[in-house]
């Protein structure tokens, strides 16, 4: 069973080929997990629903890193941790000019690392232009 967690539109647009990102909700007690665990941290149940993780979120903290690992052909990359309305905190890449703690962001899914044959997709948090 899959359902969307937010009322806002997914910010997919040009990245519509990107697969959705899921959180994992315990079928027994409703606790939401990200990343995936096999056992619920609250009740110990092993049955989970996938729920799409998208929409608006708030920036909790961020950094810009200047020494990247092998495979990232960029001088620097920005990362952030964001909080979703359901309380879940998730880390991802940040595509924001001037990050500020507490700013509202929009979730997008994009290529986080180019691969041979297959790219890696994941969260890229962007400025929320739909706000006004």
């Amino acid at each position: 069973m899959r359902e969307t967690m937010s009322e806002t539109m997914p910010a997919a647009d040009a990245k519509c080929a990107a697969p959705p990102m899921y959180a994992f909700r315990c079928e027994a007690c409703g606790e939401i997990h990200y990343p995936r665990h096999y056992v619920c941290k609250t009740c110990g149940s092993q049955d989970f629903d996938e729920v799409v993780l998208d929409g608006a979120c708030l920036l909790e903290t961020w950094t810009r890193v200047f020494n990247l690992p092998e495979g990232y052909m960029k001088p620097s990359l920005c990362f952030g941790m964001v909080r979703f309305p359901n309380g879940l905190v998730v880390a991802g890449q940040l595509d924001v000019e001037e990050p500020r703690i507490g700013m509202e962001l929009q979730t997008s899914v994009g290529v986080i690392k180019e691969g041979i044959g297959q790219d890696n997709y994941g969260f890229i948090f962007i400025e929320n232009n739909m706000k006004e």
Partner: protein
Amino acid sequence: MRSVGIVGIGHTKFGKSRVSYTDMACEAALQALKDAGVTPLPGHGIDQVLLATMGASMINHQSGAASAIVDTLNLRPAMAETVENGPASGASAIKLGYSMIASGLADTVLVIGAEMMRKVSGWEGTDFVATMLHPEAEYPYGMTLPALAGMFTRLIMGKYGLTSKDLALLSVKNHSNAMHNPCAHIRMVPDLEAITADEDIETVNPLVADPLRLYDVCPVSDGAAAVLLCAMDVADRFEKKAIRVAGIGQATDTHAVAEREVPTDLLAVRMAAQRAYEMSGLLPTDIDVAELHDAFLILEIVESEEVGFFKRGEGHLALREGKTQIGGEIPINTSGGLKAKGHPLGATGVSQTVEIVRQLRGEAEGRQVEGARNGLVVNFGGFGNNVVALILSKDA
């Protein structure tokens, strides 16, 4: 359960090694054996060798490296294993050696920590270290340990008022301590004004992971350290008086850092230290000297709070008041810490233990904490997802 002590220590000069991985590990091992008065001849009496390393397989292309080292030292037929627990491999290996002796499976265990990271390019090395991050939620994003430390530092600054200047002050403290440690990688004290001045800061002390700058993070080092553990009931076989392993604690935390309930807490540090205090019957106020895992300087501050030396949010205030320098209330990282002594991952926990043994023996020349009787080691794996704490005591 048998009591366990340390009767021999060895430590190479950290930095860029000019010898092979095996040579470097053997150098530390031989120093520890010599220090204990053991000659590695047939009948040497070493029952077990544990080699702590994170990257011997990945970086140096040596798997099962403990076997090679036992053979090179002609310590056959001693039992041998390689222990990997990320940057906490060293203290983990000491914990396992302790367990073997306490259980009666061995009387003597030689623990060697050795890491040679300067063999590969900076970006290969960065990728290698990043492999300890969460394999789905962190690593594929290009996140690194400095990335997690940068985000963590920003949270601590916002919550407790710690500033970049505090980190610079800490950098100067640890580099100053390293000036008295001949084994330290970097023996140079940065100028506080120069590394904090707005003018030209991006040249002198550039950003690594905003807000962390060059002088806030440890260098990449090669190095090895070794300790010889033995049962206290056979300790009189050795030349040096044993320093007792009084407490061991370990705890894990969420692998993905974003998943932590209180993002400014280092819960595994708190729990590991609590367990070590309980086992030893000691309190934070009984500790005279500590080696805390300052791969990023922010960690020394927060660990000093989580292990109970200071209240939460007051570690940087204690630093400002000089409480953590030699001669202060509780000297931290007299060796120079990972920041200045260097951080060869798998060797670090063993190296921290060597420093505490030196302090408790009264052999820490130039940086001695007078009258030190109890010392604490915190060896931090991942970004705090697996932490080992050790308490060592000098018996009367």
